[in-house]
């Protein structure tokens, strides 16, 4: 594993990664907005539920937490938005597929937020 990492992390690659990170940092708002929009598109417009989509987005968000130093509070703000999405769906369609998808996103982001806050409070 170490060998593979050592191979991958050549100075050239590190430079590329750093460039990418700085690019992401420069476009932080757009990147985060895209991520949030993709979650809401998934809730409102995609009828099927895919773990690949869910965990990819969560993984990306996890990376962004690291890169952008996102606080737990931000995550709970997103939770609030997800809760609103769940409520709107519940109000009009009852416990339908979009409602349940919003609920699952909410639960997952709550878990992430709690994890973040725990780490923040430990520091």
């Amino acid at each position, binding site marked *: 594993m170490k060998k593979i990492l050592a191979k991958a992390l050549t100075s050239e690659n590190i430079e590329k990664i750093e460039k990418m990170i700085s690019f992401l940092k420069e476009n932080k708002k757009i990147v985060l907005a895209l991520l949030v929009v993709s979650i809401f598109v998934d809730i409102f417009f995609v009828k099927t539920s895919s773990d690949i989509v869910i965990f990819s987005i969560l993984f990306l968000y996890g990376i962004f937490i690291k890169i952008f130093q996102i606080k737990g509070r931000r995550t709970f703000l997103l939770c609030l938005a997800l809760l609103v999405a769940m409520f709107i769906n519940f109000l009009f369609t009852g*416990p339908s597929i979009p409602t349940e998808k919003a*609920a699952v996103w909410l639960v997952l982001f709550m878990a992430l937020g709690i994890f973040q806050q*725990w780490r923040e409070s430990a520091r």
Partner: protein
Amino acid sequence: MKYRFIPSFIITLFLFLAPFFWFKEGKMDLGGDSSRLYFYDPLHYLASQALYAISHSGLGGEGLSYFGIPFFLFLAGLKNILISPTLLIAFVHGFSLSIAFFSCYLIVKQLLFQDEEKKTTRTIVITEICALIAGLYYVSAPVSTLIWSHMLLTDNQIFLNPLIFLLLLRYLLTQNMRYLFVVLGITFLFAANFSIVGAPAFFAFYPLSLLFLVLYTMFVVRKPLPLKGIVVGVILFFLLHAFHLAPQIESLLTPGSPTNNLVFSQGAKLDSGLGYFNALVPGIKPSISLLGLQQMAPLTFFSFVFIIFPVVFVLGLLWNSRKSMLLTGIFFLITLFFVTANITAIGLKFYMLLFHIPGFSMFRVFFGQWMWVFLFFYTLILGQALLVVLARIKKWQGISLVLFLIVFLIIIALPFIIGKTLQYIHWQTKDVSAIVAMDPKYEEVLSYLRSLPIDGKILSLPLTDPGYQVVKGDNDAAYEGPSMITYLAGRNEFMGFVEFESFGTSFLKAVKARDYVAIRDILVMLNIRYIYYNEDPYIYGDNFPGQPYIHVSNFLPDTQAGYKEFIKNLGVKEIKTIGDKYHIYEIDDASYLPHIYAAGKIAYWSDYLVNLHTPLSFYTQDKRVAFYDDSKILERHPEIFNDVLFKAQNKSSIFDFFKVKKLPRFVSPTVKQKLSSVLYPFIVLREKIDLARFKAVNDRYIDRSVYFIEKRINELAKWAGEIPIFGNVKSITYLSNIWLEPKLWELHKYKEYNSWEVTLVRYQQSVEKLIDALEKTKQSNYSTITNKVELKNDLIKHQNKLRQAIREDSAKSIYDKKYLLDLVDGMFADILDKLNLDLPDDWIIPYEVRNPLGNGIYQVYVNKDDIKNLDITLSIDGKSISSRPLDTGEWIRFDDILVKNKPFLRVAIKINKIPNLVSETKWKTAEERKGELLTQAKVEGAKQKDTGEGVTTLTISYSYLGNTSGLIRDISKWREDSIYVISFDYLTYDQNFLFTLYERGGTKKNRYVNNTHSEILRSKEWKEFSGVILSRNDAQSAFLQISKDQDDIQGQNYTEGIKKIDIRNLSVLRITDSQIADPRIVFKKVVKAKERSTPQVIFTKINPTKYKVTIHGAKDPYALVLSERFNPKWKLFLPNGVNEAKTLKGLISRTLGEIFSSILHANNIVISSEASKEILTSYFNDNVIEGMHKNIFLDRNTFETFGQDPILEKTHLPVNGYANAWYISPEDVQNKEDYTLIIEMTSQKLFYGSLLISLGGLLLLFFLFLKSFIQIRK
């Protein structure tokens, strides 16, 4: 702030008092699964249900319910003070409710105060408010109020969970052992919640909440764990609970025991566990749980308001700075996962994997089992989050929020607080209330039944389905729940059909046929002495049209008058009438088999003993017979049997036509790739690879093959209009012989590859390959016929689907449609021809006798009833034998046969003439029948004409009426549960007709006309139709219908005028009367055994787990029968000092037994419930004497078998299909003729031992508790 406790005390007091207004004096919420009769009569309930390791239901057997002892004693004590059971129920409800609230309030308060660094007046007030709201939420949440109707014994968890959590929290924070001792005392009192019946509640709540407490103490409060105290607590817990845990653990670790099977068997883990879970999981919604609503319940118009709670959580987390709340949040999410399961597909997969853990199947109703722990953490996080929110928002906003929450909680809890939720109406009844005041006359019945002198079982009528009893109360309400005769009178009783277990079907069959001889035989063998009958019309009839009589009402009389007639015909004697409606009857001594008897005859019966009357009908005089059905016993010890009876097994393959495969069938496949897609060849390839993976043709392979076969049909049906047609193929079979699938590189063949014809070739080849495989397979659990029948049903479905697709394809010309329809019809004709599903020869029923057939002479019997009105010839190994004109009761005796060195006999019954059931009826038009099909307008054109040579021409003018028109023919003497062969030749002149068989049946309350079989008929020349039909088990009559079916090509035949079908040789034959009662043939071996004497048996019941049996004059070997469900834990002891156990365990238990016996003897201690009257009852000319039954729980003789080895364990075997029997030879009892035996259930012995441990533990706990006070004073 010294008055801050006042609101909480007021609410607690209010919650305690509220239940006292729920029921008027005398009324009780009894019934439901746990009966709740322990509130009504705790002491009798204790004696009947908890003191002994025995079940009083039906056949008896081991029943471990010791866990209830402390709680029932506690209730008995309370009832002594409160007198009224209504007050007792109100007290317990009030106690549960108020403690639940108060504990939650204190927990939240504790958690909030622990976090607070600066305690200002404002923070104290907010904390109080938050704790109060959390406590209120816990008791008024929709999921919380759900359980109060007919609470179960283990539903005490509603207050036990928060109470124990609170005390443990206090213990961990203060390290004061007294909290721990109080917890242990509570667990002892409410032991049911810590026993096997409380396992789901226990394992859902305690592991998680204890983990929470540990993490909270270590990482939030940062205090060390009092490990020493915890170890002491765990040891004390096991000591206190030894009295119910030890017998239960022993049962759990005994292979083959019900508990062991429940936990470790694959069936329990996956079939009833995971299978049940999978059925429920799609209906469970995470959003509903997040809102705190009930799963699977209809939403109300204000359900959306519950969003306020998750909003508070999220806002609380958003503004939170406390670790304790984060910890609660983690546990809230964990419990949310367990209560919903539907958190991502990976989460669901993980949940499903958990079912492989032994015992996890207890969580199959997961949303109910995890609900309480979820509610608990929901409450905690609500309290904590609310504090954060209130501290953050403005004062007026806070006040508004608090007022809103309080008002909302009061509104949602109002129906519950005023007791409306508990005003329960019995399910499927005509508004019969479940809040019942007990009928004093019924109390007399219970008292009378308790005092009955004979230790026989009771049959209760009207019989129900699940063993639930219905008794009208003193008010306009009824008790519906587990029988009071079982639970309060402690009598073994058959109240429901299910309690007859394997004998249930034959009992109901005999009842339906009003075969009173068979009914009495079944009652005799099941040791039923009394019949209790409640003639109250309130409990049987209009008020209870459904439950609990749904199934049995098809067999038993449907009115109380009918029941009276039924009982009268049973020939039983009425011995008591109470309140003009409760009757008790007694079966006479001559036709009663006592609970314990020495069998006069020992017989071997080669079939399963599910119909006890059949073997017993050979013994019309003395019914003291012990029937063994294990062939190994006959092989090893043929000398013990007086009679050897072989029932010939019906080997007719006709039964295979009706076997339903148990495998869960696939859902019809969805098709995504068009035939023209470049990916399609890969799909076909993948299917081939998929099938090639199977090493053998087993049921999974067959299922998979049919799945792929059906895909071809679905493809054609979905893209019917887009798929090209060659248009020049004579038949699919012809094309199949010359067609070769193109290779991947043969692109020029792609167009051919996609065609209709080639897809049909692919379909036909796959089906034919499967048919070949079915012919050869030995790996399937089903016969070739069963597999072929299922395949044929699929093929018919496929044919209809294809015809419909072609018919509805608007893009095709009539020519193309006709071309395709001809191809499809031809293909299915060829496939069905290859399937070769011929009916068996219905005139000859083959049988076989295959058992350890010894050499010798055999008497041959055929049951008279089964071949009534039939002209039969019986042949054995091809030779006909004739009947003898002897009167042998229910049996016709044939010539004896000599068997020499034959492993089996081939037997056949040839039915010389089977009556044609339509020979005396004629075709009629639908309106002539004025039938049940429908009320239709006048139909003119239906006619029939006999054209000679047996051909009937049926003409139908109006085809648009579909199944409402056509011609109908009655079938006479149609019976339930019988097999029929329907056959005829037909010619439809290339038109579609629909042939349908309708059955009528049901009960008076629920009549039906049901389409049992239908098939489309279409032919250009004479064709034969033959079908084999199994009638429904409640069918009473039937008729055939021929109607015009939709033409495949619309409008084509409308111009041709009248629709015509010719029919000839119509016959409907009943092949067997039923699947079970096919003509019974029995071979009875002529055994020249030495005549044996039957010893005298005198037996006395000490308690339900112990019998004393005195034997006199046992010169010969005999079988001692105990008519209780067989259990290896019933042991036989010969208390003479010779059989003392030579082990250390034996020495210890003998010594302890002697010590306790001498203590009890010295102090003359006897703990006993009422004994029966001191009457001796004798049967069979004093050959069996029964008497002076007692219910001694503890006296100086209780320990007399401790340290003794049981005798005859190897000859302890099941007889009569359920009972215990010991085969006793003189040498087994030291060649004595007169001796005394003790029959004892050993679980009870283990209980006595473990009870001593628990009592010791209780004393120790008491001592430590007192000591903790003394230490503090010092």
